[in-house]
């Protein structure tokens, strides 16, 4: 069963967490990405996430498999939302259970970092002023060059 889930409705994170409980695990680290109310000083009303679903699922699962091989963890699960999310909604959830806390923290961090680098999901921010923009690349269509901010992805914000 895939442990990387792409979900288009409000996610029940209690059940995700519950599914990771193991009697051999002593530490559990989770990370959530929430929709913030501002980006670069502009008021955000919501964010729309679009995924290339088959590749996002296989790449997400590959990340979790790498994580299992690389860190001394018991189990892990990740969920990414698609669709329109409002401020405060959960865009991404990651949970890692491990015998010891160091592996739990480092593995959880690895999963979110890799998701942001590799999983084909894109977000479009809806601003209170009515503008709608693809986050990482909206400057390109206008200027024809690749801005630094794409490299650093400050807009991904978490």
């Amino acid at each position: 069963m895939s442990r990387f889930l792409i979900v288009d409705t409000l996610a029940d994170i209690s059940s995700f967490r519950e599914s990771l409980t193991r009697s051999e695990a002593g530490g559990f680290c989770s990370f959530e990405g929430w929709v913030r109310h501002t980006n670069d000083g502009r008021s955000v009303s919501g964010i729309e996430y679009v995924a290339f679903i088959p590749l996002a699922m296989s790449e997400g699962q590959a990340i979790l498999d790498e994580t299992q091989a690389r860190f001394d963890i018991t189990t892990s699960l990740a969920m990414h939302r698609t669709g329109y999310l409002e401020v405060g909604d959960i865009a991404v959830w990651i949970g890692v259970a491990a015998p010891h806390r160091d592996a739990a923290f480092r593995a959880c961090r690895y999963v979110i970092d890799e998701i942001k680098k590799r999983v084909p999901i894109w977000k479009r921010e809806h601003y209170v002023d009515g503008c709608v923009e693809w986050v990482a690349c909206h400057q390109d269509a206008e200027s024809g060059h690749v801005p630094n901010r794409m490299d650093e992805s400050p807009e991904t914000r978490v």
Partner: protein
Amino acid sequence: MPHIELEYFAQLGDVAGRRAETRETVAGTAAALYDELRKDYGFALPSERMRVAVNAVFRPWDQELHDGDHVVFIPPVSGG
């Protein structure tokens, strides 16, 4: 000529004005096909900033294309 199934995500969809198309093309590789699309639609992103997936698997730019292949050009991702 081979027929290629294309899907467009994020700003590529906006610029192309469509989410998907079936395209007849003589482009023999993913790289050649992206060059063709840049000319047709004016995509700003150079291939160095992109990745390409053929039949939902990441592939190198010199991947050969065959009739019926499903191709997605992947602009920088912004999930999370």
